[in-house]
């Protein structure tokens, strides 16, 4: 019966109802898209670091790994510790070309897992030398640099021969340039590396490893990959930005709900008075208004999730975004977006519900 009242009211002003649902749906779609893309970007970046490793060593208190400076002698020492299975130094750098404002460069050794795991489209891992100058391009980078194996391409202020082209599932890698470690150090004027990624022989030795890093290198810190994802300030800023942008969108949707419910209450004063006269308590009237808002929010949220998912899938097939958009929706994100949409709808209906509670039945019915 309550559901009947809710549906009757929502159907009574179909356009208004549809506009509210559209408002919430577009807000949810925007939030889902922004959050998923940025989380995907964060995931990709952390994926870069976690390639066949579970810990990362970098300079303490740097705001961005591009500014991290790990001493050159640290790699040899850390790799020699009994608990370490292998350690890889990585230099991160950013250059630009005439039509690409950002090209990520990775200075790596020939043993790096990225080269082993990638699908080689041109050339092979054996042709990449840690000491040489020849670089390997991600597939998308090869596309926008119009380069093939054997060509020489401009990267930043230098020119490098191309040893091969690889395909990876990571957008940064796919649009990136892989330089031999020494060439990258020279190119980016680094004595050491940006980070050292470490795989331990036994996962349970991570505590001891972190303690040894702290004792041996007071200026460095070691974090497990998940720990790094949680604490790295750039990731936190990105995630906060995503939720803030999405939250603003949802706020607008909430205002839409508030407007709709307020209009609904204003146009139903007589109906609410009739309910009151027939035994509905103030709380029941408020619940009715809040339930209507909840139904609107839920329909909007579900439609928004659908629209957002379609949008993400479509973006995945845009060549320029290849590898940058991770369209796999995380259950936690879905749940949070649904919950936020629900809370926004309810929050938007609070004042209308309060107004409905205060309707004096006798006054409303007097003007017959």
């Amino acid at each position: 019966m309550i559901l009947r009242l809710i549906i009757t009211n929502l159907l009574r002003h179909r356009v208004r109802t549809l506009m509210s649902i559209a408002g919430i749906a577009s807000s949810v779609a925007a939030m889902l898209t922004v959050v998923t893309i940025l989380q995907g970007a964060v995931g990709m970046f952390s994926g870069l670091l976690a390639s066949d490793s579970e810990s990362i060593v970098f300079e303490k208190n740097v705001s961005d790994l591009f500014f991290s400076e790990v001493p050159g002698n640290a790699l040899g020492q850390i790799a020699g510790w009994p608990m370490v299975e292998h350690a890889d130094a990585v230099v991160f750098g950013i250059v630009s070309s005439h039509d690409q404002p950002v090209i990520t460069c990775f200075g790596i050794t020939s043993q790096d897992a990225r080269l082993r795991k990638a699908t080689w489209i041109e050339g092979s891992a054996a042709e990449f030398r840690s000491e040489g100058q020849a670089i390997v391009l991600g597939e998308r980078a090869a596309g926008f640099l119009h380069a093939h194996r054997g060509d020489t391409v401009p990267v930043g202020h230098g020119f490098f021969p191309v040893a091969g082209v690889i395909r990876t599932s990571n957008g940064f890698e796919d649009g990136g340039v892989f330089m031999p470690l020494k060439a990258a150090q020279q190119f980016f004027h680094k004595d050491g590396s940006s980070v050292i990624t470490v795989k331990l022989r036994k996962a349970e030795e991570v505590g001891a490893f972190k303690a040894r890093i702290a004792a041996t290198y007071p200026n460095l810190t070691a974090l497990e990959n998940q720990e790094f994802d949680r604490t790295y300030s750039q990731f936190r800023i990105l995630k906060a930005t995503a939720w803030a942008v999405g939250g603003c969108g949802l706020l607008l949707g909430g205002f839409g709900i508030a407007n709709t419910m307020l209009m609904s209450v204003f146009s139903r004063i007589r109906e609410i008075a009739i309910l009151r006269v027939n035994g509905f308590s103030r709380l029941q009237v408020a619940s009715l208004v809040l339930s209507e808002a909840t139904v609107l929010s839920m329909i909007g949220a579900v439609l928004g999730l659908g629209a957002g998912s379609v949008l993400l899938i479509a973006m995945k097939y845009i060549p320029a975004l290849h590898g940058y958009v991770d369209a796999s929706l995380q259950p936690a994100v879905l749940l949070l977006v649904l919950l936020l949409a629900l809370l926004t709808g309810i929050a938007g209906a609070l004042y209308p519900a309060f107004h409905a509670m205060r309707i004096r039945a006798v006054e409303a019915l007097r003007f017959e």
Partner: protein
Amino acid sequence: MSQNRSLEHFPASAPTAVMAETRGLWKSYDEGAIEVLRGIDLTVQTGESIALCGPSGCGKSTLLHLVGGLDFADKGEIFVEGKPLADGNRALDLLRHQVGFVFQLHNLLPDLTLMENCLIPAVAAGTRRAMAEERVRELASRMGLEARLGSRIQKLSGGERQRTAICRALMNRPHLLLADEPTGSLDAKTADSVFQLLLETVAADGLTLLMATHDRALAARCQRTIEMRDGRLLEEASYGSL
């Protein structure tokens, strides 16, 4: 049915207790500029039917609203079944399940069916759906509406709408029925039949009826008729004397 139907046709249950009582009831609007009720003292015995008569604006409807807890007095006390009413009082919400209202205009929700309209008080009271529907069928049968249960209100005639309003008022088996010009919007013939049904139901269920009306013929069919003028109870006349 004749409008002169006498009281013995509707033997009320013997008044054994006070159903409602008002003491020194004052009510004004526009910050005291318009005094509507001026010290009303009224005692309604359980099971009796009372008609409040008087010209428009004399305070009949206001008195009903106050007794039914729809509005609040500026001064004075109201007791329904011995319980005092006060603004914000939880007793007020409980009271709404014990008091049935019938208005001049039916005040039904036009988008809902007869059945759904009648279910509203039951929903408010938290009655189980099956039980509530059974009650609607029973009342609709008594009011001759059983064939119209699934009809939307727009499809009903004026008399059917008012009978539906009576069904709805009786849904929660109220002890007190407050009727404000219950047949005021109906033609004479329909009004007579609807009022007849109302009185029969009141008598059969042993309800207490407090009704505001202009219609002295209808008033005469109640056990007591009380005349109101300018917010005061003027006189109490036995039926037939007016």
